[in-house]
């Protein structure tokens, strides 16, 4: 019984990871890659860790597994946010099929400050801000 | 498999050597780091290596019940890693300072003919 549970959990976990890696390969732009990979991999690794927690009948192992999942859940979104923001800021192009970009022109170039409302300094044609890129795969 | 490790370490040495033959200071630094890694793996693989049996005595016991990996190379590599961290961090900063003074990453520019600059 428990073996079947383990097999299912690990299979789902491994497949999530596989999808994440296929995703990062296939997705047409950076943001989509980022979006696809972070959660799938977190989910996949989380499931594998649950397997480990079940396999070792030890409190300490379960604690560790939970701790790892917890840390992943805290840190993965932060990492994704930081790099996504950096990418956007440095003008990493969006996929041509992107339908809307409400962030465009919201950054203050000098201070990196981000307004919640359109400020009067904004300029939609700021060359450094991400543009949809026809050449992206 | 040891052969794989041997292949890896050989290539680490090769890549390290290739990089220290470049003109860029950053590549020099990366080369040095790769060489260090190569040396570490060499020490590692030349000790007695085992899979899945770390040299940690099981909680309940006082001595090992099973085979365990040779701890000495591990201790040596640990020391070596930490030492190279010290060297590398100093080197990185040196690079930064040299770049600030010479305004170049090119090692060939490091030949000020000035004799009296102390």
């Amino acid at each position: 019984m428990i073996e079947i549970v383990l097999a299912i959990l690990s299979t789902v976990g491994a497949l999530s990871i596989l999808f994440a890696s296929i995703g990062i390969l296939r997705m047409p732009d950076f943001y989509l890659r980022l979006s696809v990979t972070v959660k799938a991999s977190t989910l996949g690794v989380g499931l594998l860790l649950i397997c480990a927690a079940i396999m070792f009948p030890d409190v300490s192992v379960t604690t560790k597994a939970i701790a790892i999942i917890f840390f992943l859940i805290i840190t993965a979104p932060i990492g994704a946010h930081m790099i996504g923001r950096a990418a956007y800021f440095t003008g990493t192009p969006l996929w041509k099929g992107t339908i809307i970009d409400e962030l465009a022109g919201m950054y203050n170039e000098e201070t990196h400050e981000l307004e919640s409302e359109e400020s009067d300094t904004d300029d939609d044609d700021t060359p450094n801000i991400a543009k949809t890129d026809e050449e992206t795969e | 498999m040891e052969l794989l490790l041997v292949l890896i370490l050989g290539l680490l040495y090769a890549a390290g050597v290739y990089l220290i033959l470049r003109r860029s200071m950053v590549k020099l630094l990366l080369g040095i780091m790769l060489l260090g890694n190569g040396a570490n793996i060499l020490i590692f693989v030349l000790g007695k290596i085992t899979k899945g049996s770390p040299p940690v005595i099981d909680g309940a016991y006082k001595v090992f019940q099973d085979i365990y990996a040779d701890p000495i190379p591990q201790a040596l590599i640990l020391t070596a890693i930490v030492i190279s961290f010290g060297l590398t961090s100093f080197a990185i900063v040196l690079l930064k300072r040299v770049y600030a003074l010479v305004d170049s990453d090119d090692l060939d520019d490091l030949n000020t003919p000035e004799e009296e600059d102390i």
Partner: protein
Amino acid sequence: MKSAILQTATRYLLPILLLFSFFLLLRGHYYPGGGFVGGLVASIAFVLHSFANGTENTMKILRYKPLSLIPIGLATSAVSVTFPLLFGLPPMTGLWFEEPIPVIGMIGSALFFDIGVYLVVIGVVLTILFTIALND
């Protein structure tokens, strides 16, 4: 490079990482860990904090210059190394209290040595990184 998300997260991560670094330090004699890794993790905690809040703010938390940790750590290690000389034993000889203490286990000169290492590592890493960060 301020990010509100990173800043808030760091608020939880800093204590967690520090706690974890103590954990690694104390259990080093029994499980993977020890002064080095412990010190490295602790310094990473502060580095993270400095990324989120700026190095100046991290320095404020630390109060003292990380550089001053180096001699303290070195002295701790060096004293625990030379301490056995007082008993006519060679330097570095392990001296142990008779009874184990719960959680930590046996207390001995090795632990003090490791604490010294831990402090040195923190001092070193933070000195290096913060000097660079503040130098720009």
